């Protein structure tokens, strides 16, 4: 089971404390806070939550510095933060945007653009295109609405600051807090289920998300409709989970990702196929993102082992529990049933590479037909499948991580090969040198990946320190462009290389003659 602590309360409080120092756009403070974020990357969720809450609950003129902190984390820390931000960026951005004045809005939009185009040669496409585009669309819509009315007045916000919650929660005895939560879950369950059904149209099939019900988009393709239904299915499932674990911050993140996907699908009229596939894979992924069973409901099942199969078996052995579960969470119990089915069919060991039967490498043994053995390569061993290429992963945390990395790769590759601007093809490069091949290191991997991904650009990076005389290129006899590099405080010649005592344009590519 994933042992992800939802929120580190001590860290949350101390980071919120640090954030309160961020009263103006101070680079040093932002740097310090970014460093703190780097140091606590394992608690990325907590840090982000703190920033999010700070953004939400601080007065408007404190929001821009905090937003710049977020930008700094995006650009300088990345990693886990990007994964977590991906799904909630839109909400954070739009919520802040709504509450600030026009000047700050413009600054935010400029920052947004740098996430796509890169800043000062920095990395580009920090977020998937659809996430950024969605934000732009939201902003455009808000602006359009504003021109209809008088102005988009900054909106006052509501909600409860988690910091207050935390403080007050401390005063409760733990047991009592749990009892209360249990009660509120039950209340919330009926309330939310009712609200959701009401929003779902009369035929019981979700057609449009509640917020957009009044503007049904009739041009929507059949595929989008199908996809939307898939999204709703997952949302519904997660809502049920959420009722059981309302404080699970991971689940909360999943939910907000799902919501942004839902909004995106609803708004998009014509999605390209690969994007649909990306979304679909994302969905499959989010669906299984929280593998913890509803702990509260299972509390009275005595569990000796943490093994997932045993857990399921002991659950399935309690029909009373399953039935009561079915009442509250029909999807959940069905999916539990589905999980059980293959496990019973295929036998316990089939998934593992070590098969129950030893297969010696002998002529007789190799010639024997063993029915069903292929299953270990398919559903039996690796039930998660990427629809884009057929790659399969195990149903474990590691398998999940690998699938995530795999989908990321597809995403980057699609971006590269099917991106909107036709880019120049990358180069193959030389093969790695034998020494590096023999001792592969992670660092090398990153360098090489960069090399593969790097577009072929005019060789602007090739520079030579400027000379006093205006010596031209020894090949084309044209003079060099000069540029001042601030970091080095020196003038350089752009696209130049020195061979021996002569200068050449790197693009002239003529070696010494």
């Amino acid at each position, binding site marked *: 089971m994933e042992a992800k602590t939802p929120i580190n309360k001590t860290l949350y409080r101390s980071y919120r404390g640090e954030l309160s120092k961020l009263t103006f756009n101070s680079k040093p403070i932002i740097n310090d806070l970014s460093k703190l974020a780097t140091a606590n990357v394992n608690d990325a969720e907590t840090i982000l939550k703190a920033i999010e809450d700070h953004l939400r609950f601080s007065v408007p003129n404190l929001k821009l510095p905090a937003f710049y902190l977020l930008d700094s984390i995006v650009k300088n820390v990345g990693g886990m933060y990007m994964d977590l931000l991906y799904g909630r960026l839109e909400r954070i951005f739009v919520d802040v945007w709504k509450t600030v004045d026009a000047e700050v809005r413009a600054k935010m939009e400029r920052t947004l653009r740098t996430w796509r185009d890169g800043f000062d040669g920095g990395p580009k496409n920090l977020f998937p295109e659809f996430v950024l585009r969605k934000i732009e669309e939201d902003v455009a819509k808000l602006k359009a609405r504003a021109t209809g009315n008088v102005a988009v007045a900054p909106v006052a916000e509501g909600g409860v600051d988690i910091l207050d919650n935390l403080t007050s929660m401390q005063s409760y005895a733990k047991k009592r807090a749990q009892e209360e939560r249990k009660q509120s879950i039950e209340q919330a369950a009926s309330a939310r289920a009712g609200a959701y059904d009401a929003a779902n149209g009369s035929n019981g099939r979700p057609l449009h998300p509640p917020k957009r019900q009044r503007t049904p988009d009739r041009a929507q393709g059949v595929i989008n409709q199908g996809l939307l239904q898939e999204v709703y299915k997952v949302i519904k499932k997660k809502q049920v989970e959420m009722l059981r674990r309302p404080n699970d911050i991971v689940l909360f993140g999943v939910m907000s990702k799902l919501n942004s996907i839902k909004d995106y699908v609803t708004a998009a009229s014509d999605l390209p196929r690969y994007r649909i596939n990306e979304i679909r894979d994302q969905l499959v992924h989010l669906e299984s993102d929280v593998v913890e069973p509803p702990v509260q409901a299972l509390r009275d099942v005595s569990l000796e082992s943490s093994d997932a199969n045993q857990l399921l078996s002991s659950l399935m052995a309690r029909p009373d529990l399953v039935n009561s579960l079915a009442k509250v969470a029909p999807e959940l119990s069905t999916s539990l049933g589905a999980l059980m089915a293959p496990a019973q069919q295929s036998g316990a060991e089939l998934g593992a590479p070590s098969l129950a039967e030893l297969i010696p490498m002998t002529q007789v043994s190799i010639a024997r037909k063993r029915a069903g053995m292929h299953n270990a390569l398919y559903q039996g061993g690796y039930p998660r499948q990427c629809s884009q290429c057929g790659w399969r992963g195990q149903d474990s945390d590691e398998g999940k991580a690998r699938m995530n990395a795999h989908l990321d790769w597809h995403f980057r590759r699609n971006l590269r090969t099917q991106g909107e601007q036709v880019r120049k093809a990358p180069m193959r490069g030389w*093969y790695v040198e034998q020494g590096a*091949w023999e001792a592969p290191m992670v660092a090398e991997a990153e360098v*090489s990946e960069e090399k593969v991904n790097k577009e072929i650009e005019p060789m602007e990076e090739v520079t030579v320190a400027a000379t006093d005389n205006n010596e031209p290129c020894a090949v084309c006899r044209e003079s060099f462009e000069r540029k001042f590099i601030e970091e080095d405080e020196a003038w350089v010649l752009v696209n130049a290389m020195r061979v021996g005592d002569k200068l050449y344009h790197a693009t002239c590519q003529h070696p010494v003659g």
Partner: protein
Amino acid sequence: MTSVGANPKTTDWVLGPGEEFRFEVDFKHTIEVKLKHGHAEYFGAELGREATYSFSGENGAVFSWEGCTLTVVGECQSAYKAGETPMDTCINVHMALQQQRTQARKDDSDGPRVMIVGPDDSGKTSLARTLVNYAVRMGDAPLFVDLDPMDASVTVPGTLSVTPMTKAVDIETGFMGYAMSSSAGPPDTPLVWQFGHDQPTDNAALFKLIVDRMAAAIKRRMDNDPQTTASGLIVDTRGFTDAAKCETIDHAISALGITTLLVVGSERMYSLLSTRSYAKDVAVIKMARSGGTVDRSAIYRQQYNSRTIQQYFYGTPKEPFSSFSTVANFQEIRILRVGEDYIAPSSTLPLGESRKLTDTSVLPMEPDESLTHSILAVTDAAMESDDVAGIQALGFVNVTVVDMEKKRLILISPVPGRLPKQVLVYGNVKWMETL
């Protein structure tokens, strides 16, 4: 469908459990294959539900363990469904290897090292590809050793190579496309040597020298990389039937520490190899040749190899690469060849003298027009060094023009600018870019 006319032919193929769809498409046509229902694999790599695969100039087979429906668009030279495949033995071999890998990981010992031998066109590379893919699908990362210089799979022909396999071999572009999609995870670039001949026996001494160097490189890699150690080797070889040609194979078996020898499609070779002295340490297993193998004509091979070189420089339509024109002056490069093709016949030597040249001797070549269209290996050797015979190739350049007047070569190179190293090794392979 109502409109016919220009629409390409669309056929649904329904495969039962254990059946495969075999096709031959020439270089002029392209077919598209899509999985409609069920699960299927192409030489061990599973087809994606949403993906469409196109093939041109390819003999292929889509196999299904439990049955599936495929939609095929386009004209095949031949297309049929087959029920008899060697897949049951193939998966047995894989599972046996996989158990050895698991055991090796447990004991911290060496994983299985399997070599595939057999006559020409018996399906050796297809079997190697399937075994690589099965291993990768189970999370292993074997090294793929290509000892078939004539139909090199990973890079240009005339080479020997070893490649770490951490992902499935691409369905459409095969081993050649492997290095292209390397942006997922660590780089899987191959370690490559210029051999320069079609057959290992064309220069057995050089072949053995390279295999020895390769074995040493593999050993060092495995010392640094326990994952690879347990995953082992999968070795593909040049086809042969002649017992006399076994010599290079025998050497490779001992140099690479082969533990399992798979003999495909030849009872005769099987019986021959299982009486070898190493047979007591090596599991020699015979495997049936797949009914799907096709005898490749010389013309087909030529076209196939030409495309391989094309892909080295320019990638594939889905993953294109840029190549660059560059200039190398005669005086700043050295072009060498290893071994000598034009040795004076023994009869012209004084009585009692034998040839002094060894087959791994290095000879300089004066550049002339005959170099035009050659593929030259850019080696990692130092300018003054004559020790280039077993030195890795960093890549390849294609000579487009030999300018005798200005004393320079115009080259196509995978990297812009000056060559990183100046020692080039000639390899008897010619290629001309066709548009």
